[in-house]
């Protein structure tokens, strides 16, 4: 009887040890990323650059593939179904489009509009666009003075439309690769095809970001 009791205790101990082991590995899996491809993609982004933007804010990492981290695989806490950065020209990193209207059209004739922040970033969470389905058509517009008071405030400076659709990728920068235009990428999303066109157009570019400008949370069609 005593022997059997001892054996039961040993078995209980072994079971607990096994459970603890499984729980340990499971917790590692949830806190660390066990997908080597995703992990390599995240690591390749490199460190945040505090001299260029406030790290881990809505202004960070302009031009990088947002939904790589902002996905169910993490490591970001929030998940995006679509996100990207709008630039004025094809080459310069420092000329980004603030307060641009990013209009998205889905296959069931759903449309939504989002506005870029002062670093040119926009993002769509699943709760922002509940019936989002791919493929998507996208256009970007920048007007004179978004939500401004004057009669010409909403007059368009420039509109660009994607010539193809988005098939299923949530990060604009996965295809629109920063600083690269070649057989596999059309380059960063831009309002003008050359930087000299941007020089001539002299579009409004915020001197710094974040700044004191009042944010524009809604496109004209969504304002009350």
């Amino acid at each position, binding site marked *: 009887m005593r022997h059997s009791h001892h054996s039961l205790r040993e078995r209980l101990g072994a079971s607990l040890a096994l459970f603890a082991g499984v729980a340990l590995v499971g917790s590692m899996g949830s806190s660390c990323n066990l997908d080597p491809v995703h992990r390599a993609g995240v690591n390749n982004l490199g460190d945040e650059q505090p001299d260029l933007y406030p790290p881990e804010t809505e202004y960070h990492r302009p031009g990088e593939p947002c939904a790589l981290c902002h996905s169910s695989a993490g490591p970001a806490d929030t998940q995006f179904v679509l996100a990207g950065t709008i630039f004025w020209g094809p080459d310069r990193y420092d000329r980004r489009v603030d307060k641009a209207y990013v209009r998205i059209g889905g296959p069931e004739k759903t449309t939504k509009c989002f506005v870029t922040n002062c670093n040119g970033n926009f993002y769509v969470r699943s709760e922002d666009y509940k019936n989002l389905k791919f493929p998507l058509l996208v256009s970007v517009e920048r007007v004179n003075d978004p939500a401004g008071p004057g009669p010409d405030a909403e007059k368009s400076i420039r509109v660009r439309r994607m010539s193809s659709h*988005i*098939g299923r990728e949530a990060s604009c920068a996965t295809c629109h690769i920063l600083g690269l235009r*070649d057989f596999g990428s059309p380059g960063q999303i831009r309002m003008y095809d050359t930087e000299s066109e941007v020089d001539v157009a002299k579009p409004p570019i915020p001197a710094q970001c974040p700044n004191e400008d009042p944010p524009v949370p809604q496109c004209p069609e969504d304002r009350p």
Partner: protein
Amino acid sequence: MKATALRTAVIMGVGGAALGLLALAACASSPDENRLTVVITPDFNTYVTSVDAYLTRRCGSLDCHGQPGRAYRIYSREGYRLYTIQDGSLVSGQQPTQPEEQRANFQALVSLEPEEMSRLMGRQGENPNQLLFLRKPLKIERHKGGPAMAEDDPGYLCVTSWLKIPVVQGDGTPIPPAQRAKLSANALRNCQTATDFP
């Protein structure tokens, strides 16, 4: 007793390895470099004039089949570019789709399932949904990109009309390209509608 068991184990091990090597040698005959898989392909000219533009637009974006990792790889202006021509100077989104790219798209399509494509051509395009190329976008089989076609949409009707152009006689004699049927006015309209759709 122990020595006998050990000897038996060694003999069994060596014998098993020899048998395994023999089996491996039987399987791995040297490849025949002259062997060809002859594919009866659908009409290439109709593909170029009426079908390629639709498929590149519908399926060839950079985040779908406009990627080097896809067996059905599509080259086009709107997506991935063929970098082995024009010194690799083609840029995504810029120059028009090139004839070499259209040919590469055609080759990618027909070589997905060469035997199945030959059988389909042999039966004059009847029951085209046997092709994986159509089974996936119709979601008869798993497709990571979701449903990309339906049996009543112009794109599907365009593709199946093209596949129904006879390229061999009933006895298997090839029909020269110049003597092949053309797409009907209705089919051409479907192809145009499908291509124009955003």
